[in-house]
């Protein structure tokens, strides 16, 4: 299985001289099975350069798994050129949204409204199939099996575990580890903590033993308290998650848009230093636009 990063930035595209090395595009990850099945995790702006490479292998069948519907994970989708070309098959999987009562079809219909985009949804010439992903259920994507796991973010966010031929990759999308809303001493504290512990364990089990864990490490420990509840993890929470789940490799992604390459490397090194000598650590890396890894 091959994994290639096309967008590693969180929140908003951040091009410029300070982000040249790690890249400014928002989330998009290409996964290829040994049989060359194409799986795309999220359609942030990184999906546009990926789309250019696909024009060489038409017609394509793409299994796109959307973790959640925030802009930085969907904004590239109307620019995913294969959707306009007859003969292509696009499967778009995504979460059910309890507020709108809609599934992933709404991601396209909302973005392709007349005021915001020149081409109408009805003008997409490829065959598009929308599939609402159910937490805990597995679906086939080519020869691979993909299982959705409900994580924690301000909108329903699904992590995906991709498995094929004994190899596995897990992508969290955006995720903040669950925390207790009560203070110690409050009436509901113990009960809520039990629920939090149960969810945390459930997630560790869902990630258990993966070859590659790609996780949301938006913040540093120092930054986190001011951003608690925003739905993102820290370098430390990702390292601890990978350690608990026994992941072999960890890619930290969703880099802060204001973080320069130098700064990113500095805070990453500081986080790693806190775990020096700790046992059961995976191979920990920073996700970088253009980087490809094979397992």
């Amino acid at each position: 299985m091959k994994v290639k990063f096309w967008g590693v930035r969180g929140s908003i595209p951040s091009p410029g001289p300070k982000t040249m090395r790690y890249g400014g595009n928002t989330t998009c990850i290409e996964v290829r099975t040994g049989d060359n099945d194409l799986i795309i995790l999220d359609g942030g702006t990184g999906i546009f350069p990926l789309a250019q490479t696909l024009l060489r292998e038409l017609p394509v069948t793409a299994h796109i798994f959307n973790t959640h519907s925030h802009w930085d994970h969907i904004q590239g989708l109307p620019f995913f050129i294969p959707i306009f070309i007859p003969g292509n098959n696009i499967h778009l999987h995504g979460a059910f949204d309890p507020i709108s009562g809609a599934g992933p079809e709404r991601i396209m219909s909302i973005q392709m409204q007349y005021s915001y985009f020149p081409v109408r949804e009805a003008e997409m010439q490829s065959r598009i199939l929308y599939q609402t992903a159910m937490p805990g259920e597995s679906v086939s994507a080519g020869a691979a099996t993909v299982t959705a796991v409900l994580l924690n973010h301000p909108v329903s966010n699904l992590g995906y575990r991709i498995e094929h031929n004994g190899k596995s990759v897990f992508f969290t999308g955006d995720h903040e580890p669950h925390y207790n809303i009560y203070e110690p001493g409050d009436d509901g504290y113990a009960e809520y903590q039990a629920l939090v512990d149960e969810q945390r364990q459930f997630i560790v089990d869902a990630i258990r033993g993966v070859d590659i864990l790609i996780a949301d490490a938006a913040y540093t420990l120092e930054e986190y308290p001011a951003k608690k509840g925003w739905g993102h993890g820290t370098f430390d929470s990702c390292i601890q998650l990978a350690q608990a789940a026994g992941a072999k490799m960890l890619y930290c992604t969703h880099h802060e848009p204001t973080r320069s390459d130098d700064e990113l490397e500095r805070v990453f090194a500081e986080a790693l230093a806190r775990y020096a000598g700790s046992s059961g650590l995976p191979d920990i890396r920073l996700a970088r636009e253009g980087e490809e890894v094979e397992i």
Partner: protein
Amino acid sequence: MTETSANLTDKLSAAVEKMPAFPKSVQRVLEIARDINCQPKELVVVIEKDPVMTMKLLRIINSAYYNFPKQITTVNQALVYLGLNTVKNMALSFAAMGVLPQQNAAGFDMQRYLMHSLTTASLARLMCQKFGNGDADPNDCYLAGLLHDFGKVVFAQFMPAEFREALDVSQEQAISLHEAERQIIGADHSVVGAMLVGKWQFPKLLADAIRQHHGDIPPENTMLGSLFVADQISKKLSMGHSGNLVVEELPPNLADRFGGGLDDIIARLGDLSKIAEEAQSFARIGKEILA
């Protein structure tokens, strides 16, 4: 009659979708949602005190879309699984349906209903904590108390003429309201309440407790026993009622189980004034909203 026709089932299920929530909770949800730093626990307090909001939230979270390994029965569980922002926006969408009017065409007193539901809920939880033997979760008993008469609100909102007649008949003939409902509507509120929570995949124990709270079978498990006793205590101590003032005697098996009659149980539960006060402070109408 204990069965509902498919037609009635569909009609009432659709009705709940359109049902507005209670004024005070709508007011509080709007206040909380205006504050970007709102405390999640404040939102929990509001939702778990409103039978309509609780019903709607649990309906969605127990739906096939989430496929959770166990059924969700508390607002806290919903918050852990869905996250604060999603639950907040769901509450806002419930609030956007407007508020349940203080007056309805059936002449059903919503204020007293809410008081009765809240006190029955708290009393059922307390009963379970004091007398339970591990076969029921106190939070599930709270939910059973909160929703046990939910069928009446549905009747009052969507079948007001028939429900008004049932209320009148029960008064004129001095029969209990559920008997009058069976005569006029063809099904009583316990069947309707159970049908709704059953349709939406709430735990079977809960649906059973709601269905049997006026049943002929003596209550056997802790949830049903706690609900039955809590329902009677709420009426006996005038904490609230929902159109039915008749306090029923404890069946012998319950008197055995809880060690005496209603008065003995009330004495053993200790000071219950806080339960009534809490419910009262919540049930009070949000004046700004109705103005």
